[in-house]
Structure formats: C-alpha cells, structure tokens
C-alpha cells in the first residue's frame, strides 16, 4: 500500500439504510471476486473454440485503441500522413479480425446451445452486440472522407429512407455519422460487451449436452430452464 492510500476501515456491519452499502452487498452477492475472475473452469472447457471470445475482446481493444489515436488527430489526419495511414490500417484490420473472431465465436456458441440453463440473456446480449457492431462499422465506412464514404452513403440512404430511419439518421451528414462512430456506437458496443462478459461470469460456461441415455430419463424441473 502506498503512503497516499487511505487506510482500509475495519469491517463493520453494513448500514441497512445506506444505498452505498446495499449496492456493494448486492454486487458482491451477484459477482464475488472468485466468480468474476476465476482461475478454474469446468473440465469440459477444453477446446480452441473457447479462445474466440477472448480474441474478439482483444480485437475490440485494438479497435478502440487505434480509434482513439485516429480520433485524437481528427478525421482528415490519416489521409495526409504515413503514420496516420498506418493507424487507419490497424483500425481497419482490427475490425476485420473483430468480425471474423466474433462470427466464429457466435457459431461456436450456437452449436453449443449456449443459451441453455438460464443463459438466454447471455445470448441476447451477445447477439445485440453483434448487430450494434455492424452499425458501428458501417458508420466508420461513412466517416472515411473518401470515395468509399461517398458511394456507400449515397447507396445506403435508400434502404434507411425506405423505412423512415433516414429522417433522423442521415448517412450523408458526415458530422452526424462521425459522432455516431466515435462516441455513441463504440460506447454501446463496449458496454454491451461488458454486460455480456459479466453474464458469462455470472452464469458460467454452458455445460455439454447430456448424452442420449441420460437425457431420456425424466428431467428435474430445475433442469428444464432454457
């Protein structure tokens, strides 16, 4: 502990009226440290497919880091400097790797039936993250300030206009698309990813399907949750 750290107070019974204490008690109950960062996993967690979730998070971190650099220098920087072009390349390939690893992760989880055992919300959070990620990447293509951005915006406007979305989400408005791309959608993707990971940690990794003979036995009511 450094000299600047405040001494840790002695553990005393929580004040039932304290909002802070109630929030802490609830958070500790829902997510004790050994559940949040476990160093052991069920023996069935032994396949390369499990790595793709971590690879997706790694790609997201790379996208955010390279995007921060591009954003700090402004949208025109990468067109006129070699170092800017390099970081734009990292950002672009980070996105391609992000989607590749996320789709492998998604198919893996689909074929594991990863929503079983009360894990439906974990699937929903992941699926929504995938859809919001598509919107985030799309606004990135619109924010490039080059011919790709011109062509994609003039083509995409028809689909969005046809269902009324174009009335408030104008793909030919660079300022609006840039705001969506550098703030709103990345924050949504990061928060949804965090929620998804917390749900995975809360409910654990889905166990294998029970084998045929065992499955044919009458299931206990608690096993029928899906």
């Amino acid at each position, binding site marked *: 502990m450094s000299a600047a750290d405040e001494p840790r107070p002695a553990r005393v019974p929580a004040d039932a009226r304290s909002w802070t204490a109630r929030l802490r008690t609830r958070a500790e109950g829902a997510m004790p440290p050994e559940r949040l960062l476990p160093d052991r996993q*069920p023996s069935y967690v032994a396949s390369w497919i499990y790595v793709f979730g971590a690879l997706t998070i790694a790609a997201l971190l790379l996208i955010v880091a390279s995007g921060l650099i591009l954003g700090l220098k402004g949208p025109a920087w990468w067109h006129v400097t070699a170092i800017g072009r390099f970081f734009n*390349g990292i950002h672009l390939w980070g996105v391609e790797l992000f989607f590749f690893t996320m789709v492998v992760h998604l198919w893996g989880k689909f*074929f594991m039936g990863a929503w079983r055992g009360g894990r439906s919300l974990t699937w929903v959070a992941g699926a929504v993250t995938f859809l919001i990620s598509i919107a985030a990447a799309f606004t990135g293509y619109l924010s490039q300030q080059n011919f790709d951005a011109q062509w*994609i915006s003039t083509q995409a406007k028809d*689909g969005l206009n046809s*269902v009324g979305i174009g009335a408030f989400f*104008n793909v030919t408005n660079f300022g609006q698309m*840039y705001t969506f791309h550098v703030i709103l959608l990345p924050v949504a993707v990061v928060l949804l990813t965090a929620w998804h990971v917390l749900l995975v940690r809360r409910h654990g990794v889905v166990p294998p*399907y029970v084998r045929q003979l065992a499955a044919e036995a009458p299931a*206990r009511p608690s096993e029928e949750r899906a």
Partner: protein
Amino acid sequence: MASPRDAAPPWRGPYRSYDLVKELAICIAVVAALATLLTILFSSPDEKPSTIAQWARVQPVDFLTTATAELDGSSDTAGYGPPYNHAATGQVIGPIHLQSWLGVSHPIDTAVDYVLAPLATIPNDPALRAQIARYTTAPPAQRRAWTDAYAKALERAAAHGTRVAVSPAGSGPVAPMMASLLSLAQARGLDGALLTSRQFYQTDYTKPLLFMADGSLLSDRAEAQHLLGDQWGMMNETGSYPGQVWLWLYTFWYQVEPFKSSDNADALVWALMMLLSLAFVCIPFIPGVRSIPRWIPLHRLIWREHYRAQAS
C-alpha cells in the same frame, strides 16, 4: 418450456486450471501482431473523393444534363419523396408507409438549391441576372419547353476538353444559365455553394452528394471498382479489400426475386432483415430453432474430450 434434452443441469464434475487473464493477454498480442502484419502487407484503401469541380471538368455534358434535370424536376432527387421532398410517397411495406409517415426532414428543392441559388451567388453579371429573372418569371409550360429543348440539344452535344459544344436552339435563358453554372462548377464554386448555408461550420454533405449521385461520375467510378448494386454493392470496398462482408445477407436479397425487381425492394429487404435480426436475437426462445444444435451434433466435436472421458 424447453425440451428436457436441451436442459443444462449445473456442473457437478471436476474442474481444471484456466488462466483467463493470461489467455486475454496472449490474444491481445496475437491480434495486434496479425493486424500489424496485415497493415504492413496491405495497408488500407483510400480512393480520393470526387468533387463537383472534377465532375464538371471530366464529364461536362453529363454535368449539364444532370443540372438541367435538377432544374426541370426530372432528376432522381427531384422525384425522390421523403425525407427530401414531397414529390413521391416513397416505398411501402404493404399498408405501412414509414418513409411517408416520417416526413421531409432534409428538404431539397433541386431547381433552387442546385441551379438558381448557386447562380445567384455569381457577382457582377447583370446579363445572367436578367436571364435568371426571365426564366423564373416565365410560365411553367414555357420553362419546361426551354429545358426540354436544352436537354435534347445536350444529347447531340460534344465535349472538347472542359468546354461543351451545344446548339441550344429554343432553349431561351436555360443555355446561358447552364453555361454560367458549368463555369462556376469548374472553378470549384459549386462545391462551396452547395455546402454553405446559413452558418460558417458545415458537416452536412447531403446536397452535394445527392447532386453528384444524380449524375454518372460516382456510378462510373463505382462500376470500375465492382461496387454497383448488381455487383453486391456497398458490402464491397474499393480495391481488393474484404469490405463489409458481414453485410452479405442484406446484400444477397437484392440479387434475388422478388426483391430484385420490386419498386419497394429497399423497404422489403429492410423489413426482412429486421425480422431475421429479431429472430437471431430471440433464438433461445424459438422452439425448434433452439434445438438445432442438438440435431446437428457439432457439439460432440467441441466437447469430444468430455464425451470421451465420460465414455471411458
């Protein structure tokens, strides 16, 4: 209620050591190395954007033809409908008229915004002002006759570099107005005029982009880069880059009937994709679909060690 065969009872078996933080650290290193390698090998595409000045210099006849269509209201943008104008009702999904219901939020009057207002910014040209006044005060039928005559003359026009040789018989004030607009555009004045409105700072490129999209320059460049709708459109990217491959299903519907030839293709494809997206999110709750992983037992491959241990 789910089938008992889809149940996932709490795990009562053995556990193994698993270092999540180390796994993530290695993943970050691997992804960063891969992205760096791909960047060094392939960089990223960056085709320069088109400008109206470039369009007016490279394709002056197409520029004039498009500007004339904007003036007489026969261009794609002029007849688009919401959110740009009331010229059409827009696309529908059966009885649902979302495009029309959301209204005109980015109003564009193509004759004023693309031709008359930019021409009015040209200073010290009383002859041009007189021609504009002659055009704007003429009856609609007369204006239509002038623009029709000029559009017909443009069909036989030839470009000599940045100049256009046209015989504008019967086109009245339209010919000198369009000659001035072409000069303004070639001198980069129209790029600025379409972007500037009532305030200094600008980020909305709706007007210049829609104007250029009404012409041929963008689509010619897109065709050369395999970006047209029948070339799987915007999921592609300039050059030999993967582009937005995750949009393959959305783009796929535009390639097949009944969407391919429907007047409401965009609305129908969007409705279908929203439905499919909802189904994707709700897979855990859809009977039958949620049992597919049990019917196609790829999980036996994923958990082969577990099943092997169980069998032994």
